[in-house]
């Protein structure tokens, strides 16, 4: 997309609103749906990667030290990672206003 979605006029759209740029869904900030967020505690994390496997959004990545954390641009705050974590290293906290 040449412009962000909020800047596009009806004249900017391809015919039939066809998306001709493969993979541009990565520009969509699903993180703004979130009402709660995961907090990762690296002291408890055993780097097993179960959160990474279960995350339905595919937004959990390993950082430079090998600990897992969510990319909040995409994380919808569903809480599945916290539920699945063996080591109880993830807590879900409400988003502040």
């Amino acid at each position, binding site marked *: 997309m040449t412009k962000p979605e909020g800047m*596009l006029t*009806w004249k900017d759209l391809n015919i039939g609103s*066809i998306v001709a740029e493969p993979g541009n869904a990565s520009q969509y900030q699903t993180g703004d749906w979130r009402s709660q967020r995961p907090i990762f505690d690296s002291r408890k994390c055993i780097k097993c990667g179960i959160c990474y496997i279960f995350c339905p959004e595919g937004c959990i990545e390993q950082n430079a030290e090998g600990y897992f954390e969510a990319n909040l641009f995409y994380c919808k705050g569903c809480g599945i990672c916290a539920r699945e974590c063996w080591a109880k290293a993830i807590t879900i906290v409400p988003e502040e206003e």
Partner: protein
Amino acid sequence: MAKGVGIEVSLAVAEAAKLANVDAVAAYPITPQTHIVEHLAELVANGELDAAYIPVESEHSAMSACLGASAVGARTFTATAGQGLELMHEVLYVASSMRLPVVMAVANRALSAPLSVWGDHSDVMAVRDTGWIQIFVENGQEAVDNVLCAFRIGEDPRVLLPVMIHLDGFHLSHMIEPIVFPEQSEVDKFIPPFQHPLPLHPDRPVTMGAFAPPIIYSEAKKAQEVNLEASRGIILQCWDEFGKTFKRYYSPVECYHSDDAKVLLLTLGSFSETAMTAIDKMRGEGKSVGVIRLRLWRPFPFAEIRQAVRNTEVLIVLDRAISFGGPGGPVCSEVRSALYGEDKKPKVIGFVGGLGGRDVTPAGFEEIINKGIEISKRGSDREFEIFGVRE
């Protein structure tokens, strides 16, 4: 030289799709449309038409398969009627919104319940707002001609919209009429090859029908509306070009003795021919009556309607569908709306008739006109009347 042959109109519609050299047909049989797709299946099976014929388990699937075919750039045709059209309903919006120029013949049929396989316009009116170009035809020749025009209009790169050709179930679909089929070479020249600008193709991946959040949906709908509006000019150009090539002329509103008529009847579809017979008789008796026939239903021909009724005092509209609990027939309601802002406008009197295959004879049309004149004089406490109903 093109020659006339006697043929059932349904089969003639299938022959027109063959002349247009369709690439793909996905269809499900339903009365009174069955003969159209049955004949196309024969043409494909016999090797007379080189097309993919996709048998499906429902009309919902038929239209969905048509979308897929059209999306890769195939010239695509289907046909349906009544309940079948309603089962397609949600997919019809997708065809127009994704700008896929599927051409569909609809053998107009009443909707259940009670079950009726016979003709009226309940099915059409329920899909009024689906964003398709919609054209009514009155006889077999018009059906053939407009199926050909539908491909040229819909596939025009400035249009890229699906087109419905409405022909009355049984009253027209099952008639045997003399039809002049244009020569293949002339049709090939008239309908250029279809080239979708952004087709589905593995070399250049695209997403059709993607998800649109509130921030972009309004823009998508505005673009669609502007596009359907802009198709008017191209429809007129196509009919003009068709006339020059094949010497048969079409316009959005067809007028018959309407210029000087104080009373005008507005009809659509095959009933218009019967109405003209009634007008001939009444004209012979010195009555100032005429008929206007709505050919182009979407986009609605506002300017042409206003022009056609500018000198008339009473406009009687015959709908073949009811908008239950609403302002009467859908056509009458739209005509009233189109004239509301005019300084000089006729009184608009609404009738609903010809439901579920009920005939309206020339004598019936005479009665509708006389009754309409009477109502226009005394006023009416109802929005519309159902003609011919036994009280």
